[in-house]
């Protein structure tokens, strides 16, 4: 379907597609098997200017928005969701600066992000703070000209690989959610270290690590925005980043459909290609319908969000839920279409199915997204 992309958007798609084809697909099985971070691929993406897509032009980027990054992530995910996640987490990690950072902070970080010289990560989750972000126990205390951070973040994508971390910490625990703030912590800061790297079911090319802050001292000016506004910035960050996760689902769904259709045309049983059986055809048709519906919703939501609209939470959550549920279903069905071969590592669809699952979990589980949508509906119909 034609989504009427501008010439520049088409260029972005082409570039990301070429990265997926030339750099990601040849390596993805190996990265998955070895649990290996795709450093060289990220450097290739940097050279191709993809890291600059969402950074404003005044800081060396291309000045794109939510929709442009969605286009990039979709194409990268057609290659590998693990690699694409590493790229997405970089944007997630720097959005707080773009949303609430000072001019100095933007000047300090954004040019390096735009060029891909440095990578970012986003540290919210802790062992007791998953869906319930108010469970954050990491603290930040001002001591003279420095903030002193203490606590451990868990399951942080790009942990140990990134150089720039946005960390959510409590500056006033007694105030609950209004007592949280965001800080920029940098690789090499005193008292900042990395814990173990997780061994995951899917997206194994991405690195997921603990971040440990033990009397971690950082300059006073690393506080992002005003003290106590941390959760507001977190919510805004996730609202604009979630369509990116949704687009990972769209790219992954497309990759799975591509594999399934090609296989169904070639595989012969009972003397004919299995695509000639209606049961298989209908499965492929349902995959295609769900996929296109998800893409249309993600694009519409991303364009809505990119237009600086006011109320974006519902659109953001809706596209994340729909596209990630679609990706889970479509990748599972792709394995079904390939039968036993689909279950084997020689074919890429088993990895796709493993990779799909995370999309329903991270950046807010799909249950939490439905909560958000439900609450928004309740507000919208307040007078009803």
């Amino acid at each position, binding site marked *: 379907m034609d989504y009427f992309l501008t010439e*520049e958007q088409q*260029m*972005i798609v082409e*570039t990301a597609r*070429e*990265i997926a084809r*030339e*750099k990601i697909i040849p390596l993805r099985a190996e990265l998955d098997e070895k649990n290996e971070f795709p450093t060289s691929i990220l450097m*290739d993406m940097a*050279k*191709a*200017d*993809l890291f*600059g*897509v969402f950074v404003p032009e005044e800081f060396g980027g*291309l000045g794109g928005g939510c929709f442009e990054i969605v286009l990039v992530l979709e194409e990268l995910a057609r290659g590998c969701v693990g690699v694409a996640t590493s790229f997405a987490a970089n944007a997630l990690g720097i959005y707080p600066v773009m949303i609430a950072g000072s001019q100095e902070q933007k000047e300090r970080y954004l040019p390096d992000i735009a060029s891909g010289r440095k990578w970012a990560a986003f540290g919210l989750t802790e062992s007791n703070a998953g869906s319930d972000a108010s469970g954050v126990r990491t603290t930040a205390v001002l001591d003279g000209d420095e903030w002193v951070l203490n606590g451990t973040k868990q399951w942080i994508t790009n942990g140990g690989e990134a150089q720039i971390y946005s960390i959510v910490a409590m500056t006033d625990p007694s105030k609950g959610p209004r007592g949280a703030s965001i800080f920029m912590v940098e690789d090499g800061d005193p008292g900042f270290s990395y814990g173990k790297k997780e061994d995951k079911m899917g997206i194994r090319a991405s690195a997921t690590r603990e971040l440990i802050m033990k009397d971690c001292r950082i300059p006073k000016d690393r506080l992002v925005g005003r003290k106590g506004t941390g959760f507001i910035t977190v919510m805004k960050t996730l609202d604009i980043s979630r369509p990116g996760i949704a687009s990972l689902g769209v790219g992954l769904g497309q990759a799975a459909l591509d594999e399934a259709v090609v296989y169904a045309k070639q595989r012969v049983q009972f003397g004919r290609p299995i695509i000639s059986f209606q049961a298989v055809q209908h499965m492929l048709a349902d995959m295609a319908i769900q996929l296109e519906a998800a893409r249309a919703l993600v694009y519409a939501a991303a364009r809505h969000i990119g237009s600086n609209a006011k109320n974006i939470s519902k659109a953001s959550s809706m596209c994340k839920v729909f596209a990630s549920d679609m990706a889970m279903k479509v990748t599972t069905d792709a394995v079904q279409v390939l039968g036993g071969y689909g279950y084997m590592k020689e074919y890429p669809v088993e990895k796709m199915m493993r990779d799909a699952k995370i999309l329903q979990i991270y950046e807010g589980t799909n249950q939490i997204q439905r909560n958000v949508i439900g609450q928004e509906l309740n507000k919208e119909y307040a007078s009803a």
Partner: protein
Amino acid sequence: MDIIVCIKQVPDTKDVRLDPETNTMAREGVESIMNPFDRHALEEAVRIKENLGGTVTALSMGPPQAEAVLREAISCGADGGVLVSDRAFAGADTWATSYTLAKAMVTLGNFDLVLCGKQAIDGDTAQVGPGLATQLSLPYLTCVQKIRTIGDSGLVAERMMDDGYDVVQLPLPALLTVVKDINEPRVPSLKGKMRAKKAEIRVLRAADIHADEKCIGLAGSPTKVVSVFSPKPRGNRTVFTGSPAEQVEQLVAKLKGLL
């Protein structure tokens, strides 16, 4: 360091067919691409520029549509593109092509290094690089797999051989033809693509390069293609396996059997 990279637009041989009637390549409907070896030459030039500064100019001889590969070269890091294009150049063999490109380079003026792909995948002759160097009286090295050092005083490079490589030192200016092992080409960058879209491609005609008309195009080409055919398949082959001693034993037995 000012570098010229010679780039040819070729049909994508992945889907090339021979026209059985005329024995020529059926180019219709076949996608045109940048000659893959030239992509590596370009990448090497851009890397040298990134390290030492200077310029990279992409040079191509071909029909007007060959402009596309020059824009692609700019999107991969070349500073500019020059297309040598004139009806009078049509039908050029490797000699006439070398002559024409050499004339164009003289017209362009100063350069320190010329990089070419080892060969073009359509003709597969590997003659234009050396031909060009000869026309320009430049020292040259073919099948370069690595440039070890390069600076104002010259370069040291590895020439790929069947059984290893030679290490060769050359003064500059010089011409190198490169093999694919030399590097891993980058994907065209977004900013590069935007620059490429706006870039002005300079076009040089026969008159601009003061070409002798007896030396260009079909008239200037000593090569005449008499016929093109697919070679007959080779006879049966046997591959011996095992230790060298076992293989020799098998070979001797086989040869004895033929006596």
